[in-house]
């Protein structure tokens, strides 16, 4: 075996090395300098992100278990940037609340392990690798959700997440075993050749889909979402709603568009129904939320429903629009969570009511939040609009006009609750408004990156063309 082929796994190996390096550093680091582990981790991960942007060879390893191509590589970069922004946004929280309890390194090791799991998941060439990646990406997150051990609600979130995730992967595994039973192989390339629509394979498809639907929190598999988001530390809620969801959408797309393509006439109906349910129910629940984290949880459920509009058509256009939307969604949602994080860290307040009069005391934060919400709602000229519009074009290109119509009605509903937050920040005046505070450097950097993303990604059209070209790799 040629060792240079390991370069295909460059991202994975580098990330693993960073995690190990952090453990080693902690051992030799003097007690009074522990908080610099955060700086070190961010620095190392920043280098990892930059290295990720260099081009990579395409190919597969381990007899087809591990694949990589430019689209997958691009998506790993999206995840990287997302995690990097997330680290910047949580740096202050880590320094103040976590490192002081001597648990800084574990945080990074767990987070990076989970990210590593996602790399393997989206690079998987067979169901075994896929399942390993799925588990590796989920289990550390459950530990992280329970990371604020002093808070009861955090432990509750951890337990809820691990139980539902275990159930989900169990169901998924059951589905995989049925697919194996009908096709006699776990390799994607072999399955494509032989799979046909039999009762068993359809049941396998449904169970497998249900397992992934848990991770994307599609209705009716969404019940864990709001509770876990509310209890988990904000960085982890943000991670779950952005990175974890993005990776799961991506692998679901790969599997549906390649391995399960022969069953498209089955799954397009499933997606049709679930898309409508997810958009509508996510939106309706979001209407009445008071807690910002729960609010964003339901909003992100609704967003997942929109993503399905791109998945339903199963071609290059669908791939491109979904990847493009997820990329924009990463930035928009991270901006929203970032502001929530900043305010929560400073004041401990997390309710929409607490945001009343925020613009008059903290104009910059309010503007970031407004941009993020407008992007999520799909108001031009910010990026979210383009992401959504293209998803609608994708669905309409195959004649799903009714689905598009339901989606646009949902966009209007979602605008209502996004505007509720804008109303609190801009329209209301409050005596007890959150007083002015300065953000620290990391947080500022984290927010600036997201804002730039929101402003530029949509208007800069070559990006979409690039993604569209990459999308041909999938099919």
């Amino acid at each position, binding site marked *: 075996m040629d060792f240079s082929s390991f370069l295909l796994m460059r991202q994975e190996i580098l990330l693993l090395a960073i995690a190990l390096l952090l453990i080693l550093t902690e051992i030799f680091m003097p007690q009074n300098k522990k908080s610099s582990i955060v700086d070190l981790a961010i620095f190392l991960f920043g280098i990892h992100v930059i290295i990720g942007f260099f081009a990579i060879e395409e190919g597969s390893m381990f007899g087809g278990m591990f694949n990589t191509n430019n689209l997958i590589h691009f998506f790993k970069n999206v995840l990287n940037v997302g995690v990097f922004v997330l680290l910047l946004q949580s740096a202050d929280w880590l320094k103040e609340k976590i490192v002081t309890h001597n648990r800084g390194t574990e945080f990074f090791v767990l987070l990076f392990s989970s990210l590593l799991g996602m790399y393997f998941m989206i690079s998987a060439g067979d169901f075994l690798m896929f399942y390993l990646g799925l588990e590796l990406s989920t289990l550390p997150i459950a530990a992280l959700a329970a990371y604020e051990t002093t808070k009861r609600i955090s432990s509750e979130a951890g337990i809820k997440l691990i139980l539902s995730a275990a159930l989900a992967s169990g169901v998924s595994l059951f589905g995989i075993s049925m697919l194996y039973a009908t096709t006699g192989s776990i390799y994607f390339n072999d399955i494509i050749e032989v799979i046909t629509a039999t009762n068993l394979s359809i049941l396998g498809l449904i169970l497998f889909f249900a397992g992934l639907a848990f991770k994307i929190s599609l209705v009716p598999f969404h019940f864990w979402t709001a509770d876990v988001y509310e209890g988990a530390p904000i960085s982890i809620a943000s991670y779950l709603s952005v990175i974890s969801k993005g990776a799961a959408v991506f692998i679901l797309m790969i599997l549906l568009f390649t391995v399960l393509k022969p069953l498209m006439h089955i799954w397009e109906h499933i997606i049709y129904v679930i898309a409508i349910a997810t958009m509508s129910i996510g939106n309706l629940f979001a209407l009445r939320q008071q807690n910002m984290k729960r609010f964003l949880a339901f909003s992100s459920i609704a967003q997942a429903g929109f993503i399905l509009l791109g998945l339903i058509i199963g071609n290059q256009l669908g791939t491109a629009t979904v990847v493009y939307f997820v990329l924009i969604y990463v930035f928009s949602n991270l901006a929203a969570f970032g502001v929530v994080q900043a305010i929560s860290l400073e004041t401990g307040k997390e309710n929409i009511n607490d945001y009343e009069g925020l613009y008059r005391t903290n104009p910059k934060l309010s503007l970031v939040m407004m941009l993020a919400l407008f992007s999520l709602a799909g108001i031009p*000229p910010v990026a979210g609009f383009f992401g959504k*519009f293209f998803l609608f074009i994708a669905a309409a290109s195959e004649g799903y*006009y009714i689905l598009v119509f339901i989606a646009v009605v949902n*966009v209007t509903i979602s605008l209502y609750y996004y505007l509720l937050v804008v109303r609190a920040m801009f329209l209301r005046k409050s005596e007890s408004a959150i007083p002015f505070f300065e953000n620290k450097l990391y947080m500022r950097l984290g927010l600036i990156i997201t804002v730039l993303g929101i402003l530029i990604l949509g208007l800069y059209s070559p990006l*979409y063309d690039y993604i569209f070209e990459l999308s041909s790799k999938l099919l």
Partner: protein
Amino acid sequence: MDILSLFITVPIITILVLVFTKGLKQARIISMVGSIIQFVMAINLVFAYFNERAVNDAIMVFAKDVVWFKQFNIHYSIGVDGISVALLLLTSIVVLAGVFISWKMKDLPKEFFISLLVLSIGVYGFFISIDLFMMFVFFEIAVIPMYLLIGIWGTGPREYSAMKLTLMLMGASAVLLVGILGIYFNTNADGGALTFNILEIAQVNIPLEAQKLFFPLTFIGFAVIGALFPFHTWSPDGHASAPTAVSMLHAGVLMKLGGYGVFRVAMYLLPEGALHWSWFFIVLAVIGVIYGAFAALKQTDLKYINAYSSVSHLGLVLFALLMLNKTSWNGAILQSLSHGFMTALFFALIGMIYERTHTRDVTKLGGLLKVIPFISVVYVIAGLASLGLPGFSGFVAEMNIFVGAFQHDNMFYRILTIISVSAIVVTAVYILRVVGVMLMGPINNEAYLKLERVTWYEKFGILLLLIPIVGMGVAPLWLSDMILESLQPFIQAVL
């Protein structure tokens, strides 16, 4: 930079400068300078247009086309014809007048002017777009600042009105989006590529079934912002709660997007659909005309009176467009312009009266002609223009509309025309009633004797709007010619 793109870039630059200003004085000076530049550009555009038209007989002149998203064939594509030039001029005048009227905006002045300019970007962009996608983008950009403008600086139930307005207009744009996508995916009917370009789509024979299906969606999507009955309810509440300058822009400019969009997109691109559905929407428009007039009759709040009067007048625009006749189309465009100047003027005057007397209730006001003569006299003039007195813009517009409409050889349409003509009588009643009670009569409140006279910036704002009203009434022909010429492609496509 070409002459049209400047209409987008100048407000953007103004906004960028505004970001660095401090306090009301700096903010209003910068906004004024920016708006004056826009105004001069618009005047210049009118002359440039006439010169260009003499040598260039393309449908759209000053056209520019840059590929934006090539996968979807979305272009940054701009150009103007006589109709859009006239509406651009209207916009620049109303925006400038709006800046003057907001001279004393105390609360968050910088943010106010920025939002106002964002709105104007949306409107300018909408009128110069040839690409449906671009048009849609600018449509939404024009709507969303209204939420902040009414919500932050409004009065009364401002949160409710702002939310209602935003959701109804965004809901409409959602319907419109489906319509646009429907048009887009039928543009390859003749074997060409999918396109968003209006001029290219107009050459395509979109299948009849698709036209019938997507015409109502596109029509309603635009007509909601043109206050089509029964989707007009956002408009009176929005007007009543909005601050003065926002009411002016809202009624004077924003609602014009509706008529323009209906004409340029729904009817021009889906002519068979328009023929098929015209009877239905024309009934709605006539109901709007009559209903708006009678509702205005019953109101006592000055802003509500004018808001319902807008519903009635803009109902006439939709009515005239749907009559599918050259003369009435001409009238519809003239009515859009005339109503734009007139209502903006009305709202400006109402704002001034409210600022001085702190009430908009007609029954509590009286004898204002004696204490604030300038404002009152202009109010009378605006009122007379509104009820269609010859010599003012309203007469020219309504004359064209009804003469054109009555040429329709179908009895059903003629009866509808007669019904809508009767709304003019009602208009006269509610206008003269306000003039009689509020301006004439005895002064019924001691405090009114000390009312402040009109200030220089208010005079400026008023004159800016008054001159075009009189100008259009006295010398309508040059404008009418400009519009008639630009109607030619529509006549070929639809009639």
